[in-house]
């Protein structure tokens, strides 16, 4: 497809679909968590109400320039990840702006939003923000180790740093998925995934009831609306990342929605079963089992 305008149009349409799926998914997951606690829970469309309400607040105050830029950086991290992520294999229209080395770029974008948020939350000046940021960065450093090792292992396996190539190599039935051809990398990656999604037991950054909500403590109104929008996009894109790497990608929107739901559900499932770790438990946990699995994945590739 040569026409950049049409490509851009489809990318924006894809972003719209992903945003809506992210919001509905968040609603469904809230419902599931509520049912585990024997509650009826919030309606599935509650995230939409929250977003409209946040964007329609009449006042907002600022703490400085970085306070403005924090949510924007976070959003550009999420949207940037989306832009370079091929959504549907074999489709010209839904492969966004993916190119030969997109795996490396997306790994970078994953971290970019967090750094921006750290700067913005720091300017908010709330002590809980600082605690949340320090926890988040130290935890993320340890999450990245098994994740990166798993991805390097896959890159060696398929001789490629392109998502399209990695997905193409997994086509032709469930036995061709990385899940079966490279189980060690998959295990390391899926354990790291638990950390990236920020559900219990790794919800140390926002830690409800402990450091009330961590970095976004001072964020409100439209700022929080932007953060919530980004969270919806990011949750789907993270799932798509792991789907492309380990579970054979998707050839249709239905397949994408089903697979991202199941991948996201994995983190929610673990979250409702296990209580929250302390920060040193979380850090040392990532440095034990997932890291060892990651190293083994590199050795036995």
């Amino acid at each position, binding site marked *: 497809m040569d026409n950049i305008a049409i490509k851009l149009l489809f990318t924006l349409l894809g972003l719209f679909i992903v945003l809506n799926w992210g919001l509905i998914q968040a609603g469904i997951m809230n419902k599931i968590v509520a049912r585990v606690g024997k509650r009826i*829970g*919030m309606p599935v469309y509650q995230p939409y109400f929250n977003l*409209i309400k946040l964007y*329609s607040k*009449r006042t907002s*105050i600022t703490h400085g320039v970085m306070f403005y830029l924090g949510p924007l950086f976070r959003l550009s991290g999420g949207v940037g990840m989306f832009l370079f992520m091929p959504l549907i294999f074999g489709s010209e229209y839904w492969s966004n702006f993916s190119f030969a080395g997109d795996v490396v770029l997306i790994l970078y974008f994953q971290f970019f939003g967090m750094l921006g948020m750290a700067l913005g939350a720091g300017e908010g000046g709330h002590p809980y923000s600082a605690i949340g940021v320090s926890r988040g960065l130290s935890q993320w450093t340890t999450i990245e180790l098994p994740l990166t090792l798993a991805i390097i292992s896959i890159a060696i396996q398929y001789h490629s740093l392109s998502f399209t190539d990695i997905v193409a190599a997994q086509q032709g039935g469930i036995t061709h998925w990385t899940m079966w051809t490279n189980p060690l990398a998959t295990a390391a990656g899926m354990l790291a995934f638990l950390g990236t999604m920020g559900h219990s037991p790794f919800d140390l950054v926002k830690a409800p009831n402990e450091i*009330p909500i961590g970095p976004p*403590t*001072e964020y409100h109104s439209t700022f929080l609306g932007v953060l919530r929008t980004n969270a919806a996009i990011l949750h789907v894109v993270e799932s798509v990342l792991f789907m492309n790497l380990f579970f054979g990608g998707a050839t249709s929107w239905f397949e994408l929605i089903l697979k991202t739901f199941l991948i996201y559900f994995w983190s929610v499932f673990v979250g409702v079963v296990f209580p929250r770790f302390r920060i040193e438990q979380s850090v040392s946990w990532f440095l034990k089992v997932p890291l060892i699995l990651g190293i083994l994945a590199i050795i036995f590739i």
Partner: protein
Amino acid sequence: MAIEEQNKKNKFIDPDLEKREILSPDGEIIKIDPMKDYFCDAKPKVHEPANKVIEKFLNWSRANSLWVLAFGTGCGSIEIPSLMTSRFDANRFGVQMRPTPRQSSVFIISGYLAVKTLKRVIRSYEQMQEPRYVVALGSCTVNGGMYYDSYNTINRLDYYIPVDVYVAGCMPRPEAMLAGFNKLKERIKAGRAEGANEYAEKFDWYKANQKKIIKDWNMPDYNW
């Protein structure tokens, strides 16, 4: 020392709010007056609602997403945890607890208000972003209830901050609170829950009332 003099007059000034000189990271000595530099004391403004159709849509979403500030002011706050459990499940109505005043839109005054707490209530209320709503629980907030002649509690809450919904009882049960939330929803949908604007309009009257009760007023007139 200024603090000791203040204490003699039975007034307390927070040492953090004293004027002082600070060595900046550049090696420069800067004078800081926390009351002026750390707070913005601009008066609140009236924010007119948007046009009718849009405001109706926005109010509908605001009514369905009530974020409650988790701040228990009196004995009624013990009812709030049970409100969120599986038996009463306020989440069904879009009621969620938020730990910070910045993000919350509903303030539950749960029962009697000591003068000391009133000060914190005013500060938290002013830090909430508009539109904001107040639900007052129990007879203590209506007329003082069993504390009507106490030396240290206020009697009528709506002298100090505008109240949207009163839930009567001593204490109101969680069911009554759920009914109160639904009443608040109706009020918001009808466009009558404009407490924040009322507060801005009658700001001087509210401030005079507050200062009459709070003797050791050591904060700006409007916190942000």
